[in-house]
């Protein structure tokens, strides 16, 4: 019975995942989607690189900023897209159908988020390419395998945060606003463009409760040649936070399903 249930869950995840790809490319041609990945990450990085160049702050160099933005590009893609999944279902009117299906929302959204996680990998790879070949970031001391591990784990933990925001958004008329707010907040709080200690002291605990802060810290250490053991503390906290957020999203989505079924009041949300 348990094996059958697991098989069913895997099938739902696989199906949702392929549906998510088809939905994306039904609305947006692949070349525009790819153009967005290539364009947005480049110009976002260029914007902050020029600001850093103009500011001439010795602690915040162009190299510092472009590496932070390369890692942050995962957040922009993974977090925002995953957080938006429930909002899109609500927007196009398919959420009531999903709720009334025997499969839980959590399983469906996990499946749908897989494509966004893959998109996150592509974005960060492209962004690192820009950082090195256009903005002159020196990664000669870096162990490639360490950076790859950091990127993969970052994508998953950011998807956890995205799922939690998306789950919270189901209780609201639209979750798109929280999604866009949180995805931009990372620029300020997570050490992407300047060290976290620049922030007022009361804001720093919030920074350290976000997975991206640890991802950026680990990436900076990896760029200087750190091994996997040396970045383990950052990665373990990041994964712990990501997993906790994923679990929270599970309970929030379950709670939402129960609430709207019990009250029969989906339209109220």
């Amino acid at each position, binding site marked *: 019975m348990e094996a059958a249930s697991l098989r069913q869950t895997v099938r739902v995840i696989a199906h949702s995942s392929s549906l998510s790809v088809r939905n994306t490319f039904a609305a*947006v041609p692949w070349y525009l*989607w790819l153009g967005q990945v290539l364009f*947005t990450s480049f110009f976002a990085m260029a914007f*902050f690189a020029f600001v850093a160049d103009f*500011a001439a702050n010795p602690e915040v160099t162009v190299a510092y900023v472009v590496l932070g933005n390369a890692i942050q590009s995962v957040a922009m893609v993974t977090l925002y897209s995953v957080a938006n999944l429930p909002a899109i279902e609500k927007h196009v009117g398919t959420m009531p159908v999903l709720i009334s299906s025997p499969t839980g929302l959590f399983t469906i959204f996990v499946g749908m988020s897989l494509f966004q996680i893959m998109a996150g990998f592509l974005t960060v790879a492209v962004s690192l390419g820009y950082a090195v070949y256009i903005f002159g970031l020196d990664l000669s001391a870096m162990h490639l395998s360490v950076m790859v591990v950091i990127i993969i784990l970052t994508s998953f933990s950011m998807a956890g945060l995205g799922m939690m925001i998306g789950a919270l958004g189901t209780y609201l008329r639209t979750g798109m606003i929280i999604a866009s707010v949180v995805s931009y907040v990372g620029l*300020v709080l997570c050490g992407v463009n*300047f060290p976290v200690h620049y922030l007022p002291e009361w804001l720093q605990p919030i920074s350290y409760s976000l997975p991206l802060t640890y991802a950026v810290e680990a990436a900076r250490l990896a760029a200087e040649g750190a091994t996997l053991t040396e970045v383990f503390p950052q990665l373990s906290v990041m994964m712990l936070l990501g997993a906790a957020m994923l679990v929270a999203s599970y309970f929030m989505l379950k709670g939402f399903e129960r609430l709207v079924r019990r009250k029969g009041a989906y339209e109220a949300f």
Partner: protein
Amino acid sequence: MNVRASYAAFRQQMTHFLTDPQWIIPSLIAPFMFTMVVLMIYQDVDGPVVLQAVLGGGVLGMWGNTLYSSGWSISYDRYNGTLEPLMTSPTRLMDVVAGRSVWNTLIGLSNAVLVFVIAEIMFRTGVGLANPAEFFFILIITLASLASIGLVFSAFFVLTRASSVLMSSLEFPIYVVSGAMFPITLLPDWVIPFSYLLAPSWGVDAMKIAALEGYEGIGLGIAGSLGLMLLLTAVYILMARWLFKKIERNVRSYGTITRF
């Protein structure tokens, strides 16, 4: 131009906004966060440079609002199934979109003012505007020039369902090329002509001259920068008019609006 239709579109857009005003948050949050980041990076810099960052944030706020509202103005019609009736009505689409743009421009202005005020309260730049009246006049004209770019984009967005992708792709290039947050002289030589073709770059330059004591900018002075911005804005409006006409004629002649 059908002024009554434009006015009706203005009122309709206002009603849409007032029904769900939370949509101002996304277009406000990005420029505000960017302003905060820039001010944090500047650290020990004060006075005019800080004011420049705050002004830049306001311009980014206006641009974000223009881009998203022009994109969504057509996309919402598509979602709601009202694009087809709109296209087949005797009123020109450009008149309708222009009316909506005027409302969006007003919201863009409030957006800019909000960024200025919040940043000023948080970071206490303590620097006054050199010529406040001139500055606010140029701010409004710059906003109008951004709205004219929005009109051109709206015309293109009639032809695509992928306006959301195009909108997010176009957000940062203008942030970079307009020189809102840093002088355009920092850009590579081959990019600078693109900045000069962009009306808001001249608006930003004129605004900085009016706001900052001793700022020389690109070198044309307020009148020169303002003149060029107005000229480019007129070109954008003519371009939008031509595009709307051509697109409307094509989709009506061939009955192909649902294809896009």
